[in-house]
């Protein structure tokens, strides 16, 4: 599947800003900008599905003061998790963030469903 949610990332937003500017300065046409954006959707979906191997585990631990799952929902095949005090474990290192929002879509191949 090619999702458009990655447009709302730093990379996606920056690309859109650049495209906006290029259109305003008449360097490219809006239709070319749209093609670039659609290509971005395809490329980032493909790259994240095929080139990233990261495993994140988290769980709801209500009584202790870390890794707290505040809200979760599953709507239109999209999972959303809102968490607080989350620790990321990357082999030897830990990183801590106060608030985390995870938006998860079905990342299986384009030919799937």
């Amino acid at each position, binding site marked *: 599947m090619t999702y458009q949610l990655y447009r709302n990332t730093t990379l996606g937003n920056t690309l859109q800003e650049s495209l906006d500017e290029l*259109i*305003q300065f008449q360097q490219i046409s*809006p*239709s070319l900008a*749209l093609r670039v*954006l659609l290509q971005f959707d395809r490329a980032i979906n493909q790259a994240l599905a095929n080139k990233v191997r990261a495993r994140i585990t988290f769980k709801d631990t209500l009584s202790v003061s870390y890794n707290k799952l505040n809200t979760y929902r599953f709507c239109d095949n999209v999972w959303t998790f809102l968490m607080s005090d989350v620790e990321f474990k990357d082999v030897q290192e830990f990183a801590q963030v106060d608030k985390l929002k995870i938006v998860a879509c079905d990342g299986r191949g384009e030919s799937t469903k």
Partner: protein
Amino acid sequence: MQTIDMYPPYILQMYGVYDTHANKMEVSAEQVEQAVVEFYQDPVAKSGLNAWLMQAQHSRHSWTFAWPLLDPSKPEEVQFFAGNTIYMKVSRYWHEVPKEEYEPLKMKILSLIAQYSRSKVILNRLVKSLGAYVIHTIQLDWTTAIQDIITMFDPGTVSGIDPSVALNLLFSILTIIPEELETMQEAMSINSKDKQVITGAVRNSHQAVLSLISQVMQAGQVSNVIKEVVLKTLNAWLKLSLPLSETRDLLVALIPYSNYALLCEPVMDALRTAVTDVGTYNIPNTVMEFVTQMLRLAPILEEAQRASDENTASLIYSLFTSVVECHSRLLLQCALQAEHQATVVQVVALLLQCAATPGQYPTDETTSNIPFAVWFTIQDDIMTFEGEQQAELLQLFQPVYLKLVDTFIQKSLLPAEDALTSEEQEMFRCYRQDICDTYMYAYYVLRGEMLSHLEVHLKDAVVKMQSNPSDWRYLEAVLHAYSSVAETVAETDNFYVPRFIQSIPQIPFSDNIQLISVALTTLGAYADWLNYHQDHMHHVIPLMVEGLVNASLVGAASQALRDLTLECPLTISPFSQPILTSCQRALEQSRLESAETERIMTIISRVLSVGKDQPTIMTYLNDTLTPYISRLSHLKDLMGNGISRDQHNELVSLLKLLSCLARHLNLNNSTVEEDDDDDGTTRRHSQVVSGEPQPLLLVLQQLMPLLSDIAAKATTDQEIIEALCKLLKNSISTLVDDCVAILPAILEIIPQLYEASLNPAILDLVKQLVILFGRDGNQENNMGVLLRMVTATTLNRASADLWSHTDAIHGCLMLLSASFKKTPNLIVSHHNHITPLFHLGVEALKLPEEGTVRAAGQFLASFINLSRDPNVGCLQPVVAHNTETLVRTLMFCICNSPRHSLTSFSDVLSALCKMYGDDLARTFKTVQADETFLSPRVNAQQKEDFAKKVLKNRGSKRRILEAVTDLALIGRGLAGTDYGAQTRGFH
């Protein structure tokens, strides 16, 4: 005749198209030719020419000047420009062609195609022009286009073109037509409804095309190079969703061609396109029959393997992977039917064989990774079946997954050291991660069976290790498998996991560091399970505490113990003595990395937090911390005389170490009391049940003078300030109200640091204090002074140069937003800074960073919302006097700032609309009257429409955001474009 306008006059004068009286003139082929030649001579210097040429290309003149330029006597770049112009005109400016010109235009393009049949680059433009022409006319004007083209370029009858060239040309045209259909919506402004109709019209001719393809593929005299082009045409047409029932015979007949290296890939592409098409979901029987016929590829696969032809094998395996990914549920349904079961079993066996491709990944082979996704899909779909059907499927697939586990243990064996380059190592790491994930899916199918199977492997591996200690890689791979399913088995298994844990002390590790590290990591992964099985803790603790005092193992051991102390705070308590002893020895003996020391301090803090009395804790802490505090004190003394980079880093590490202690040494960690005060606010007490103060407080009371000295000497050292703030923040989080005892020292440190550095970490600390003590009768005054100091300093230091202090402004506005919500009393009780702060918020809207703009939006919205509260009357006049400035800033930013900030602008506008509707309506009128504002992109009418939409929807934040987005698109010249519509919803 239309003329060009809107391009710079100097360009027009240069090329003689600028008339000072009429201001417009025509463009001739000669001028364009001259411009193209000059542009190609020096593209960088002549970038103005590029703009002129583009404009010429888009003008109506281009219909006239392009044709004479398509002459072999002209320079090649001129011919290419002309070819490109014709394609652009036919595809995007079709509306400019009168109906009576359709036929002459077609003839011109066809004759040029024949003329340029051997010039690949220009021919491509002309073929695309013909493709675009067909798409515009096939519906009504040239309904027999496909058949006519097949007849026209028939190699047997065509004149003036070599038959093989004609064949190549014919299939190039037939490929381009469906490809142009794909891009037409974006490039030709054709809506999706028309696209469907045109696609239907093109698809109607598919039988003629399929028949032609079939003939050419069977023709013996046609070369494989041409056949490759033919197969690409087939693939392009299959993408039009042709019915599989009509294409099946042709596709099956193509299977033998996959034996030829050049044709294998296009054959596989065609088969994949056909079998994974969306339309195939409605014809399950046809799909199953087709999949059965596809198994004729098996002998070709075998032959490829015999010939070590990895490319062909990969293509075939990828095809079957796509089939399973696309039709897994259908295949599972068929697996329940006797007549189809053999096909499904054969397909799955093929993929299992792929996973087990012999050799080391990725040096010997790169095919075994192809079907990874399949194992998840099958498992996931099996779970959607219910009752007997699921049981039957599990019975059928359990042997497959067991075989897969065996395969993965072999394939995940670590290679010999230095066998892989760093890039290959990374590929292998990813490969093992995929195996790790697949073990998890296998567990869902196999459950206890998998653990039983792993147990057999574990016993084998131990025996091998005993007989030959150098044969440890098998044991490592088995432990890797155990760790992969650790979080999946969780607390549910009470039979196999206990046996595995009990077997750990019996494993002959032979001091093999790599192996013990993996064992420690695996045990750390079972921390959650151990929390529910305290009686097994004694099997794992010895290995971990021994690991702590071994310099090579301290990394893995500290990580495993850290996991254990975090997951099992209570169950680990009986083992605290050996853990604490080992931690202390580790800190004394080893030369540890900063991260390892921090982990050990976390372990110590967590272990001390449960079941220890205060004297015991203090004694241990004294012993452990004294050397670090002495060292910190020594480094502090050195700070005045210049400190080396290493010493500076050491000081920061020591502060981080104490930060870990402050975060985790909490005797109330699992039993935090919460009760309500008289005023209803929740209060937290950190004091331990016995009434004694927290040990952390005692430590901090001794430490604060030292921290104050460090702060005094490091007022501009950002790294030290951040580490110090983190330490204080963690301490306050742990001690909550009880940090009052150290509050005076903290309140002394903050101003000297902030006045010198404007570091946002300090603002974060201030925010925590203000929220905690802002309504505390004893501390309210102190918090007011603190907040005033921070705001005054930010205004004095940052107002003159906002762009250099965006992080401080961000932090300050976030602090003020929080204070508006939790402690408005602190802001409104001191009027002096309110107006300048409002101005700061308005100016911050123009800053480039998204976070700062969001903070400004939150601050202004909170300010406006609170200003109507009668208890805080001092805010209202500030808003009322500055409404016009705010509205102008918002509208300017909506049209010019990055679009991801639109929500922030909309929030402020919503607040203004809700609280100051009349003032806003008046301000909009003033703004509309100013013709120069936002001109020329936004005209008066558009400004009026925006104002109406905002005022009409004062209760709806969503509608106001829509109005803001529409204005943003107008301001960028994107309104009415597909791009604008597509990007409207994402900010």
